[in-house]
């Protein structure tokens, strides 16, 4: 197990190094931030002063070397716009996005697995067909459009839920969270649902496919031949086997939910990392963009690692063969 973890850590470090290079070069190519930062009236001298202050006058390799050196010391640069460390800026927004993603995950799993099981166990029933048809909608309707429709229906027409913002928050361990207040929950529900719909559709299809496959296995037949109740056969024998692919995929999707909550946050004006990214791109705030992408990469790599470890915990065959 230890060898396995060390090897996985090595692979992760390599991925992060390669991504750092790609991200830095790509963002460098996007445009010159000085054009946006300097006021239109600024003369050549002022522009040169800003360029020098931001370190943009040096050649690319020098900028890159400095970036890597600082990054290794935990410094991803200061925002050109806010003049605050970029990481700090993002970390301030991270709890909101994280809360949103976790809520979406709970909804996706809490609704997706029961529906998927139902559709898998009764594939030819009306209910089963309806669930599958619904999941196709979840897949194919664009995320932003689903978000707009949710706002239109629940905020504009019905007036049940607020259309945007984060609502009232309370602090837990120094982090502001909104799921503990009624107002916060109301603000959280729509964006979380929006973010969850696609994943829910995915969980439904994975669970259904898994259930249909596992139900045909001899061990399910044998479990029934032992005289076990239907609840035990489905809830233990079938579910535990289905969970293996579901956990794998959801782990990866959790990363993408955190990193790409951008669309949902924009639609619902939700003050998370995604909205910060969009704002930073339009202002060419390079350090924030780079810091955001680097953090995304790190989050992905960490989640992947955790998923592999959970996977090994659920499936004894993985655990032992890798030891």
């Amino acid at each position, binding site marked *: 197990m230890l060898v396995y973890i060390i090897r996985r850590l090595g692979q992760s470090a390599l991925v992060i190094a390669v991504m750092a290079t790609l991200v830095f070069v790509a963002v460098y190519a996007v445009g010159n931030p000085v054009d946006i930062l300097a006021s239109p009236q600024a003369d050549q001298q002022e522009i040169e002063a800003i360029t020098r202050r931001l370190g943009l006058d040096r050649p690319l390799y020098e900028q890159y070397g400095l970036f890597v050196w600082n990054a290794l010391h935990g410094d991803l640069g200061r925002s050109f716009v806010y003049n605050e460390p970029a990481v700090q800026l993002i970390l301030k927004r991270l709890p909101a996005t994280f809360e949103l993603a976790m809520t979406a995950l709970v909804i996706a799993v809490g609704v997706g697995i029961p529906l998927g099981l139902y559709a898998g166990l009764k594939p030819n029933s009306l209910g089963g067909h309806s669930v599958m048809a619904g999941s196709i909608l979840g897949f194919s309707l664009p995320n932003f459009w689903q978000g707009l429709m949710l706002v239109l229906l629940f905020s504009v027409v019905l007036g049940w839920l607020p259309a945007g913002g984060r609502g009232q928050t309370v602090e837990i361990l120094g982090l502001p969270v909104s799921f503990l207040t009624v107002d916060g929950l109301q603000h959280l529900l729509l964006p979380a649902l929006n973010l969850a719909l696609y994943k829910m559709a995915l969980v439904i299809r994975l669970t259904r496919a898994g259930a249909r496959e596992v139900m045909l296995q001899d061990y399910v037949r044998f479990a029934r031949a*032992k*005289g076990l109740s239907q609840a035990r056969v489905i809830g233990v024998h079938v579910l535990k086997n289905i969970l293996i692919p579901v956990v794998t995929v959801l782990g990866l999707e959790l990363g993408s939910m955190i990193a790409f909550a951008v669309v949902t946050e924009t639609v619902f004006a939700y003050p998370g990392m995604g909205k910060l990214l969009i704002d930073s791109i339009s202002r060419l705030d390079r350090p924030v963009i780079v810091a955001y992408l680097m953090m995304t990469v790190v989050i992905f790599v960490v989640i992947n690692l955790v998923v592999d470890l959970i996977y090994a915990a659920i499936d*004894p065959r993985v655990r032992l063969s890798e030891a």
Partner: protein
Amino acid sequence: MTSQPILEVRDLVVEFATRDGVLTAINGVSFHVDRGEVLGLVGESGSGKSVTGLAILGLIDAPGRIASGSILLEGEDLTRMREAQLRRLRGKRLAMIFQDPMTTLNPVLRVDTQMIEAITAHEKVSHKAARAKARDALAKVGIPSPDERLASYPHQFSGGMRQRVAIAIALLHRPALLVADEPTTALDVTIQAQILSEVQTLAQEAGTALVWVTHDLSVVAGLADRVAVMYAGRIVEQGSVADVLENPAHPYTAGLIGSVPSRNRRGVPLSQIPGMTPSLAKLPPGCAFAPRCARADAGCRNDPPVVAFGTARMHRCFHPLVTAEAAA
């Protein structure tokens, strides 16, 4: 007065609804198994022998269903029972083991979990008592250091060991009847022999009757008291093992026996039955074996009736190799 048989199957019909219409996988099968008796159910792939086994346990899933007939276990009709009643019998009075030991145990649950749940499903006992019972059951089927093995996962066992675990689970409650669906087919020959003799001994100890589903006549010869030969969803011949194997009446039985390698026919090419088992969707009219049969004639396009003869024997053939008069 003769005692009531443990299992009596009467005119069982099992159908599967498919896209090409309703297929009759089992077509009017009748047999019985006495207390402690071993019945060999023999046939090629697709003859319906496994489906018969599943039907006894009530484990036929949609699109399949028991269309008619009755299955009496100790006088009670299983086909009329509700699922909850049937569930209480499964594992308790009725047990089943399957062909592939690599797939009959759940790969993600430990052996003790899978054994203890089988015990507590039918008995109100403490976890500790159930575990002790599970350990004794493992020891009984010859698994060394059962205490440690209980905490193992199925993939840590060899195929033969897994089948032993399955057998231990099936016999936990000393059932009246054990349906064994080719449990030795996937095993090495040496392990096969061990498992065969162990099941036989254990079943005798527990007073459990066996329905041994197999395509292997040599297994039947060594194990069973009586044998029923199935072809295309019908029993074509039935009788005591000695009678049927020495003097087969149905040409199909004779063909099966002829294709078993034997010491007495060294150097002679093995005889084969020409052709293949027919698809259930395209069964020939009348006797389903007729197209492959050397003795068939135009009359075989009619349904052959059940002919009882000799001592408790029957066949379904217009041109039997042993006539009723000769056998009598």
